[in-house]
């Protein structure tokens, strides 16, 4: 057993050195430190040639989604190996260029529910970062109560005819495809919903960006008017889309909770506060009231990361997936609390909108604060997650 262990360790070290070497050879140094959280919000911008090159290289390697099957464009690696890649990327300030909704949500869902033909067609471009996907779930009258959605997909023999309006289509204006929940049976609520893949370039698709309070427009209203969608784009059975959609939302929640790694590079809140406020003679932050709230926040962050690790370890052993609701809520609370405390630390400097007199970081803090108000609303609001926790985990049925 010890021998086997040693062998395993050797193989792991060998793997790490290969990864390190490959990254050194392929990662354009000019991109070092790029790819932060804020950029992810403003995905509209075109890629630089270096960024393009890096994306192609990682895409070919399948390392953007290392644990996905190699036959569909992943690298069929295990979690330990995936972690090694993550660590080695972080070591040199490199980022994973393969991301977006395709990776976070649709890919895993297709791997689980789609036909062989659909997987072969749609998963590899996701792995290479070639196709941008957006989500067509919410509607003006169907937010928290998603199953109230009304966008019709009428069966017209070889295709569906789609009519209706989606909203909160993230990145709709720069997406190539949309995965949508549509109504294929008006007589039943949950059992009348199907999961459809829609080409955004189809005639009849119209996109209007929604301006948010943060000034950005990462979401759209999307209008479908007599849009023809081939039958082959139906994932799963007709009227069985609700289960697929719910599963997809679970992936979303897990990702939205922020996990344990992301943000590690950001300065800690106490560092920001120290910079703006300074310490008193006793070595304490020169605003004791704020200090005590920052302490609580930093403990919350630490406990949250430990919990995320614990949930992940549990999940590997087949534990409860419903923990994602807890992580989603606590993650949202942390994001918003951090933003508010950052602003408070900065005083009026945290309230700049644009123009001179504010650093880039200060202006970004303001925008992130506003943008962050969304994290407890989208992907199933905090209220909805509390319902889920109460009913599914705690068994407080009804209501």
């Amino acid at each position: 057993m010890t021998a086997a262990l040693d062998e395993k360790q050797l193989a792991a070290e060998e793997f790490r050195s290969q990864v390190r070497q490959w990254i050194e050879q392929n990662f354009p140094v000019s991109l070092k430190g790029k790819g932060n959280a804020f950029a992810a919000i403003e995905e509209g911008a075109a890629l630089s040639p270096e960024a393009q090159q890096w994306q192609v290289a990682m895409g070919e390697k399948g390392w953007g989604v290392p644990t996905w099957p190699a036959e569909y464009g992943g690298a069929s690696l295990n979690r330990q190996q995936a972690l090694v890649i993550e660590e080695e990327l972080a070591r040199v300030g490199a980022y994973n260029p393969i991301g977006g909704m395709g990776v976070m949500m649709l890919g895993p869902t297709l791997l689980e529910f789609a036909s062989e033909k659909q997987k072969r067609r749609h998963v590899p471009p996701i792995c290479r970062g070639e196709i941008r996907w957006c989500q067509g779930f919410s509607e003006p009258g169907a937010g928290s109560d998603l199953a109230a959605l009304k966008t019709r997909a009428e069966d017209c023999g070889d295709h569906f005819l789609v009519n209706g309006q989606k909203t909160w289509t993230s990145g709709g204006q720069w997406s190539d495809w949309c995965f949508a929940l549509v109504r294929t049976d008006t007589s039943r609520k949950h059992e009348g919903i199907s999961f459809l893949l829609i080409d955004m370039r189809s005639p009849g698709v119209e996109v209007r960006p929604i301006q948010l309070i943060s000034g950005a427009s990462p979401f759209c209203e999307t209008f479908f008017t007599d849009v023809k969608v081939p039958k082959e784009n139906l994932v799963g059975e007709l009227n069985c889309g609700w289960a697929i959609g719910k599963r997809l939302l679970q992936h979303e929640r897990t990702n939205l909770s922020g996990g344990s790694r992301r943000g590690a590079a950001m300065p800690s809140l106490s560092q920001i506060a120290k910079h703006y406020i300074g310490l008193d003679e006793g070595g304490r932050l020169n605003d004791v009231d704020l200090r005590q709230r920052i302490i609580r926040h930093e403990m919350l962050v630490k406990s949250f990361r430990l919990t995320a690790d614990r949930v992940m370890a549990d999940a590997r052993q087949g534990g409860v997936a419903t923990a994602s609701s807890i992580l989603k809520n606590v993650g949202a609370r942390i994001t918003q609390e951090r933003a508010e405390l950052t602003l408070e630390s900065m005083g009026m400097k945290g309230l700049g909108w644009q123009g001179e007199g504010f650093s880039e970081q200060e202006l970004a803090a303001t925008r992130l604060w506003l943008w962050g108000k969304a994290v407890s609303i989208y992907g199933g609001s905090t209220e909805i997650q509390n319902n889920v926790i109460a009913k599914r985990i705690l068994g407080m049925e009804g209501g």
Partner: protein
Amino acid sequence: MAVLTEEQSILKDMAGHWADEQSPVSEFRRLREGATGLQRGFCAETHGQMAGMGWSGILVPEALGGSAFGYVGLGLVLEQAARTLTASPLMVSAGPCVSAVLLGGNEPQQRQWLPAIASGELIAALAIDEGPRHNPTEIRCEAVACDGGWRLTGYKAFVMEAGIADLLIVAARTKEGVGLFVVPMGSAGVTRHDRYLVDSRNCADIELQGVLLPESARLAQMPGDKLLQRVLDRARAVAAAEMLGMASQAFSITLDYLKTREQFDEIIARFQALQHRMAQLYSEIELMRSAVEAALVALDDYSGDADDAAMLVSMAKAVAGDTLNLVTREMVQLHGGIGMTDEHDAGFYLKRARVLENAWGNAAFHRDRFARLSGY
């Protein structure tokens, strides 16, 4: 308001009607798209209307062209105007700037400035802080006596309404402590730098480079620090009144929305979890109202026991800050997605709230001050 006099009731109703009719939130939205730079967030017509109704002179004695309705009266008007986010400089011009001249000015000074402020002809701004966080004990701007007058040098940051002000009340360090000076904006050596804040309201930094002022620019009827503290307390109480108007309106808008929005085939106002949150929010706003009103009453009753008024003011500003912060967060959250859009008004309340929370000391600052005044 506990029990209003008849005159106060009329004033309140008048302000409420005016805000709803003449200055709805859509006016602020329009203004946001319009004026820029040093004119940002200012509408001369709105200002004219408010001045026309005498609101710029509420604190000013009748003999000097005002109505002498006191802080309670000013609070009533600003609360109503702030409900619909009226962009007006009166919160500083008709508030603490008038207070400064009233408390610190001699008769000639009062006659020189107050009638013009009361008529709305002159707009004044209050320039105390020099950095992003309120810190009135560290004034570095200096006033040096010279040639029978004063020479001011320093930098004032984030001065609300300074872009459109004609007059500044400036805190500057003298040999005897900190004094307040009346500085006409046109004085040589005064430079303004536009500050574009999240609330899209008027704000600027002020550079004072050896600005020469006559002796009469100094408000000296009350010794330095003391005058500064008194004026600041009036600025805070009046800001708290605006915050009260915003909080109660943000609450009403949210309540109305919950009563119309349907999810899961039900009006969401029927969900008990939301009911309890709204019930708690309502209670918080009631407490906030009591705290704010008590501070305004104390300033009107002010007769020397300054610490008592100071404590009530710090309490009002702290409670107002925390409550408005909570209410605006809940406003966005309970509106869901629609509250996140620029098209909806929730964002306006959220953004303006944080600016007022920061103005002249945030809740943390005032909690500390409250405790120090209480001896712990």
